[in-house]
């Protein structure tokens, strides 16, 4: 019995290993692997819908093989699969420094011919095109745009006889009035380190200009430059002056919505992705809410930080680039982008032709702000620079806010990382 069993096992094992693949005579659909980062149930459903609907329309020609990976696991997984034998043809990417990292590592295909072929520049958010361009070439398609804005509670400001600040001086005057009334002027919610960089970046750009910021990002300006130190110092002064909520470094953005919604805080400079936490299921604000762009500092005209929250790249080594591009065109279509905004709850669309008419008036206005062309835009630091710099920067900024590092020390820490990663200032 035992002998018979062993023989059976052996024969089965050998048969399996010696099996020769049989190639079908029928032409098979071209398979395109699509790996997307999914941050919420609605987004995963939308992402899968993209693949299913495309497959139904291209039956027998192109088949999208979809894989959704949750947010945190995505970054580690994409690094592994890109090096694996069967990497995805289309994959979620990031803008700025992380995109450049993938480009420099040789995994991102240049998309110029497809931008030309499908006319993507004509339908795409102008800031999105700008962000997708590296050394004159496009390397990704933005699929979801966002902006950093100053959210505020109009009811509280009105009650205290204040208006939405249009200059930094107005903002600080309003903040002093709010403090006297026992209301926190600004929410920071910096437990996870990244939120504070939004205000830091905006202060830097609106104080010293977007050109100076571009120089900093492009390594033409040292991180120890007095302008950088000054931006750290302003943040420290705001923290020490009690302009942020108590325990600002011990609370994350989601729980911080509670004091904001209860009217215990009046302003919050943060990304438009906060709408998911501010709006109800019908898309209307859950509490009195409005926004304005970051106040102008001095005589600088304000620059709005419009950034690409979600983007898709095509694999440089893909053998089916044309088919992958066809899928990307579908992702950017009005139909897909409309669904992304509505069912996917992903605001805002990268395609400027998508109608926002069925949105709440506040969201319509924000959508127009994001879609409006402007001379330049900027990304917050951890999007703009490579990870090797972003992490020491975030660490340094939080250290300054906590009081264990001076602005100069934080600046020196980032400069050291920049030297190690990018070399000396150009």
């Amino acid at each position: 019995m035992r002998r018979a069993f062993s023989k059976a096992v052996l024969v089965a094992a050998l048969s399996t290993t010696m099996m020769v693949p049989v190639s079908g005579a029928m032409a098979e659909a071209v398979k395109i692997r699509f790996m997307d980062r999914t941050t919420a149930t609605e987004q995963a459903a939308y992402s899968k819908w993209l693949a299913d609907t495309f497959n139904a329309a291209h039956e027998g020609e192109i088949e999208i093989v979809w894989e959704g990976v949750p947010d945190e696991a995505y970054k580690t997984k994409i690094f592994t699969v890109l090096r694996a034998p069967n990497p995805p043809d289309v994959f979620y990417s990031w803008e700025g420094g992380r995109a450049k990292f993938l480009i420099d590592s040789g995994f991102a295909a240049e998309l110029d011919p497809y931008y030309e072929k499908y006319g993507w520049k004509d339908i795409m958010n102008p800031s999105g095109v700008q962000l997708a361009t590296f050394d004159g070439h496009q390397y990704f398609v933005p699929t979801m745009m966002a902006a950093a804005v100053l959210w505020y509670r109009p009811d509280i400001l009105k009650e205290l006889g204040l208006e939405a600040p249009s200059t930094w001086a107005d903002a600080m005057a309003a903040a002093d009035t709010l403090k006297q009334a026992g209301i926190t002027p600004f929410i920071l919610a910096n437990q996870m380190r990244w939120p504070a960089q939004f205000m830091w970046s905006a202060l830097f750009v609106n104080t010293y200009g977007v050109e100076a910021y571009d120089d900093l990002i492009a390594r033409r300006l040292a991180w120890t430059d007095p302008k950088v130190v000054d931006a750290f110092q302003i943040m420290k002064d705001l923290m020490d002056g009690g302009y942020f909520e108590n325990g600002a470094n011990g609370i994350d953005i989601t729980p911080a919505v509670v004091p904001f919604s209860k009217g215990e805080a009046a302003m919050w400079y943060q990304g438009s992705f906060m709408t998911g936490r501010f709006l109800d299921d019908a898309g209307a604000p859950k509490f009195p809410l409005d926004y304005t762009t970051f106040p102008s500092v001095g005589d600088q005209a304000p620059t709005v930080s419009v950034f690409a929250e979600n983007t898709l790249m095509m694999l440089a080594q893909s053998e089916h680039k044309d088919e992958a591009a066809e899928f990307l065109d579908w992702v950017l279509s009005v139909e897909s982008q409309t669904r992304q905004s509505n069912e996917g709850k992903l605001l805002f669309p990268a395609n400027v032709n998508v109608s926002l008419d069925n949105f709440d008036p506040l969201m319509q206005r924000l959508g127009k702000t994001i879609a409006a062309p402007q001379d330049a835009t900027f990304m917050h630091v951890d999007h703009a620079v490579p990870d090797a710099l972003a992490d020491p920067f975030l660490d340094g900024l939080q250290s300054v806010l906590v009081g264990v590092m001076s602005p100069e020390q934080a600046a020196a820490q980032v400069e050291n990382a920049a030297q190690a990663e990018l070399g000396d200032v150009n």
Partner: protein
Amino acid sequence: MTEAIGLRSQVRETFLSKLADFMANRGFVLVFGIILPVAVYVVFVGWPILFNIYLSFTKWNGLAPDVVFVGIDNYIRLINDPGFRQAFFNSLKWALLALSIHLGIGLTLSILLHSGRVDFPAFFRSLIFLPFTMSLVTVGLMFSLILSPGFGVLDALLRGVGLEGLIRTWLGDYDITIYVLIIIDAWAYLGIPLMMFHAGLSAINTELFDAARVDGASEWQLAWHVTLPSLKPVILIVTMLSVIQSLKTFDLVSVMTGGGPAGGTSVLGHYMYVISFRRNDFGYGATIGVVMLLFSAGFALTYLRGVARNALD
């Protein structure tokens, strides 16, 4: 030509037949009892460790094909890296404090629940063990809400009993946050030492206690001279498990503070993750991994050989 094919076929059949015979007689145990487990160990434990050691002598961003050999540069960098020093000392602090809690509170509670002076001891043991069954990520998220400044339950409780002065930014204060995390971690793991001590206490021969009582020993003397010496092997095992558990810490830090504020809760496991996956410096991250491995293995071996052997004997 035909002869050659025939010979090959004959050789193949003989080989298969002999292989089948071998499998039938001794192969089953050999393959499934030794070769497969060893292969699994080599592939999933041995090879990653060796590859990690190799990576620690390189500079690699985790994605590009270029893996540059840098010799011992990464190890020299460790010595001068304040972030590593901070993580290292935080890990040590974590291990020592968590161990104190596991031994002190775990043993005290076990003795108390075993003494017969507490009703429903099994219920309380289960209650204390319950957090261990929860994922540390869940525990972390739960405590993040409990400790939220302003509206967290703990602050509300303190306010409710007039102890407002004790309220702190539990997860954002550089000086105290690591202690908060250590306490939560120790609470979540306490069920293991408790159960191990319970098993140890149950195994002590009751005649020892009876004899000591006849000799006039007090409760304190019973605990000191009978219970503790009898539990020595358990204490040693709990110590080893507790220290290794602490050195592996990652989940709570990642979920609750991300290593902050300002690196105040950075521990070796999390720092290694940050260096590898946030800064894309896989060579240096691997170096931290090697140090962790040496530290854990060194501790376990030295401890088992030098201290535990006598007790276990």
